[in-house]
């Protein structure tokens, strides 16, 4: 069992003179689902991007620990799975090619069996050889889940996970969240009641607007 710890210290993000959020302090361990909620434009996506290390904060730090050891920023990306509406995969390649290319760039082995399983779970196995450009938005969203899970991350960040999904898709997402949170951390940024119902704790961004 992996022992993952996420630590958010005095985190602030300021765009120009506009304060997005201020002084967020949080610390969570494995086997935890954290929800992030806030009105549109409140900075949910900004916060998850900072946690994933693709955006730099104005002040404060986000530290990731695995088994008590701090992870270098340079290696962080292999510990994180990320799903969000603004994430776009390479549309000129097929789903399978995308996954193969990505695992090569990540420098990990392409686990054919595991990915086949994921493709089947996400109802994409029959269309795996089609170019992503021809997919519907719901199918693209499901492909993103495979992209996020294929390297078995310790921290799964889901930004609006159920957008564009039908009921069946939503159900499989919830089952993933349930399975995954047993050993790892899952962060869900969403405003949907249904999504937030799966969280152990919810962080309301409105509280961090100003002191």
């Amino acid at each position, binding site marked *: 069992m992996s022992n993952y710890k996420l630590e958010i210290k005095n985190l602030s993000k300021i765009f120009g003179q506009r304060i997005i959020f201020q002084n967020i302090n949080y610390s969570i361990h494995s086997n935890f689902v954290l929800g992030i909620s806030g009105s549109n434009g409140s900075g949910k996506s900004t916060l998850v991007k900072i946690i994933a290390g693709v955006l730099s904060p104005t002040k404060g730090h986000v530290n990731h620990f695995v088994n008590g050891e701090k992870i270098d920023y340079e290696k962080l990306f292999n510990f994180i799975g990320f799903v969000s509406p603004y*994430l776009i*995969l390479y549309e000129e390649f097929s789903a399978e090619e995308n996954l193969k290319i990505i695992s*090569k*760039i990540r420098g990990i082995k392409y686990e054919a069996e595991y990915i086949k399983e994921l493709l089947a779970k996400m109802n994409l196995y029959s269309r795996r050889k089609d170019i992503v450009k021809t997919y519907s938005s719901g199918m693209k969203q499901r492909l993103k889940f495979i992209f996020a899970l294929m390297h078995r991350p310790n921290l799964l960040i889901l930004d609006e996970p159920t957008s564009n999904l039908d009921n069946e898709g939503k159900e499989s997402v919830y089952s993933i969240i349930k399975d995954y949170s047993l050993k790892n951390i899952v962060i869900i940024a969403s405003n949907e009641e249904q999504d937030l119902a799966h969280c152990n704790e919810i962080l309301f961004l409105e509280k961090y607007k100003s002191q």
Partner: protein
Amino acid sequence: MFQKSYNIFIKDIKSELRTRYAINALVMFILVAISVILFSIGNEKVNSDLTAGLYWVVIFFSAMSGLSRAFVAEEEKGTNLTLQLIASPDTVFTGKLIFNLILTFFMNIVITFLYSAFFESFYIKNPALFILTFVLGNIGLAISSTIIASIIAKAGAKGTLYPVLSFPILLPLILTCVQLTIFSFDGTNFESVFYELSIVVSYNIIMITVSYLLFDFIWKD
């Protein structure tokens, strides 16, 4: 680390072959640029100094039309975030740099062949010096244009901004390379061009160091 960068490069090549945005346009651009120069020269006899200058002018503008592709394509497709999530900044930069290096060499070999076919004064008396200049110049060109491309990919008005930002940065390199090309036409020996060669080498070293140091800041939104 290098293996991963190489895989990014392979991905770019595959994507390029599938979409063929840059390659076709680039080859046409080179042909057009050289024929414009040939038309404007007419029957005039061009001396070797001017030929060397024109040679690097074509190289500069071809680079400006093709080398921004590596980052701009990623930005246009919106796949920036994906790449951020699967590779460290250094890996990405190395991958893109390899892509641009290959593209620069391909492009400039084509240009060199066309020049030696159509320009009488493009006669090299010191081939070793010419090849050395060519290799070092191309490396410098690829490094600087890769880092500038990563900047303009995040800015608006990408097409026009690229040559504007690159020119002052590339000017020292291009001036020295023009000088070295003239020397290779004149058949100057290596000892007397040591100064120029060391300038090009130090330019390349400084640029690659600065690029790796600064790329983190550009790449992280």
